[in-house]
């Protein structure tokens, strides 16, 4: 097994997930088996294959660009209607900076 518990915690942290010790232990072999499978693909010689990062392809021209014409969409009320904690005019969230 190449993956460590530290890696699992790091990935969870990046994804803003809080894992219990049990979960860390459970996900470690699962993630590891996925990576092991991907490593199998790495054995393939792709020297002469053009990388395809996307399923979209480079067209000769840009088929879909937008004109710079503003259009109204949501009203302020609509924009805020799904906010977990709406405040007058703003989205309100737990403090994101530390204050002295």
């Amino acid at each position, binding site marked *: 097994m190449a993956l460590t518990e530290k890696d699992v915690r790091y990935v969870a*942290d*990046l994804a*803003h997930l809080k894992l219990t010790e049990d979960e860390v232990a459970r996900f470690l072999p699962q993630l590891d088996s996925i990576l092991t499978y991907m490593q199998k693909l790495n054995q393939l010689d792709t020297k002469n294959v053009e990388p395809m*990062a*996307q*399923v*979209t*392809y*480079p*067209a*000769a*021209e*840009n*088929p*879909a*660009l*937008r*004109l*710079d*014409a*503003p*259009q*109204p*969409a*949501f*009203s*302020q009320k609509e*924009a*805020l209607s799904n906010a977990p904690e709406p*405040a007058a*005019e*703003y*989205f*309100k*969230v*737990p*403090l*994101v*900076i*530390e*204050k*002295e």
Partner: protein
Amino acid sequence: MSKLETAPVIPDEVRNRYEAVIGLEVHVQLLARSKIFCACSTRFGDPPNSNTCPVCLGLPGALPVLNREAVTMAMKAAMALNCTINPRSRFARKNYFYPDLPKGYQISQYDEPLSEHGWIDIEVEGKSKRIGITRVHLEEDAGKSLHEGFPDSNEKSYIDLNRTGVPLIEIVSEPDLRSPGEAYEYLTRLKTIMLYLEVSDCNMEEGSLRVDANVSVRPVGASALGTKTEVKNLNSFRFLQKALAYEIERQIEIVDRGAEITQETRLYDSREGRTYGMRSKEFAHDYRYFPEPDLLPLVITDMWRDDVRRSMPELPEVRRQRFMRDYALAAYDAAQLTASKALADYFEDIVKASAQPKLAANWVLGELAYLLKEAGKEIEKSPVRAANLAGLLQLIEQETVSGKMGKDILAAMFSSGKTAREVMSSQGLEQINDTEKIAAVAREIISANPKQVEQYRSGKTATFGWFVGQLMKATRGQANPQLVQDVLKKELAG
């Protein structure tokens, strides 16, 4: 924020043994009317969260569509900075969590940017220095977080997503800058170019021009780079210089005592004039970039690129040289006049209205600049329109108005917005060019001052100046000075 650090005080002898290495990352908001990936308005100052849609709110299933004008503007900026435009570039997702980034990622460009390998020349101590531009790429802005000013600001942040998705370019320089002064000069040039191109208003207070700096120090003569820190929150030209000066001193002090610089992001606190380390946990620097699957690669056809190139306006440096060549202006005057597009346009409007270029330059950079500065106004808001100043200068050229009168008239034009002729007729200020009128006044003075006349006629020619003074006084400075000389000589000769 970390605990207070002692502000380092470095002896010159130590400071001189080190050199700073600075690179700037400059974000410029483009003046597109709609956002980069949706049709929401980019207008500044609208009510919070009133310019949003499913795309810029990051609602599930919403798809981005690239704004053509934003690409055109970015290309203009890149070309003006002598960058190569890549025929194919790609958008990428930069992943991080922050409440003003609703999607959880910013659409930016990463390993295949729009343009690369540019440069601009700056002036350092009278000499030209070339600063490399690593890249210019397109990205979307994030929203705005407000941490202060609300009753519960001690426990809540407030988010305005109007700015989310406003088109930005990021201009990354090579680490070619060696001092806060050079960084200031570079940023000034960059801003002037963007204003000439009219791709951004570069208003630092409104956040349409934002600067981060990468700073390190190394012993003079060393070629390896020291460990760098990234300094953020440099929201004015003055703070940029102060923050860099502080950070350089801080690093020299650490390096000089043999300790290590920690690679980190530091925030500049303008009130305390120092930088603070941010906790690394607050911004995990693992952005896991990957190609944006919702957008096609951006293809710049030769035709599009050539169209943009043809539409490029004259840039400051070229205009400066043209001013020197076509208007025979001194290098200094030409540089002053082309420092902003608005000022250069104003000057050329005057010249086109048939004023002498040298005279126009003197008045624009002298008296008008003084009045504007006193009133705290920019040239764009000058109460004296270019055509009206040209009118005044014509009167001066024709010697209808003396230079001294011109100053008074200009001041009156400035406060009233009137033309020179209007001001003069309302104040009875027109220059007196009527020889007979001047002669009449001269005769009065001569007959009232027989003693001085006798002195003059007996050879004390210095008395002549006294007569000129009397005549100018009697005509409230309105008599044509040349005529006054001629007339007085004749009348005094008897």
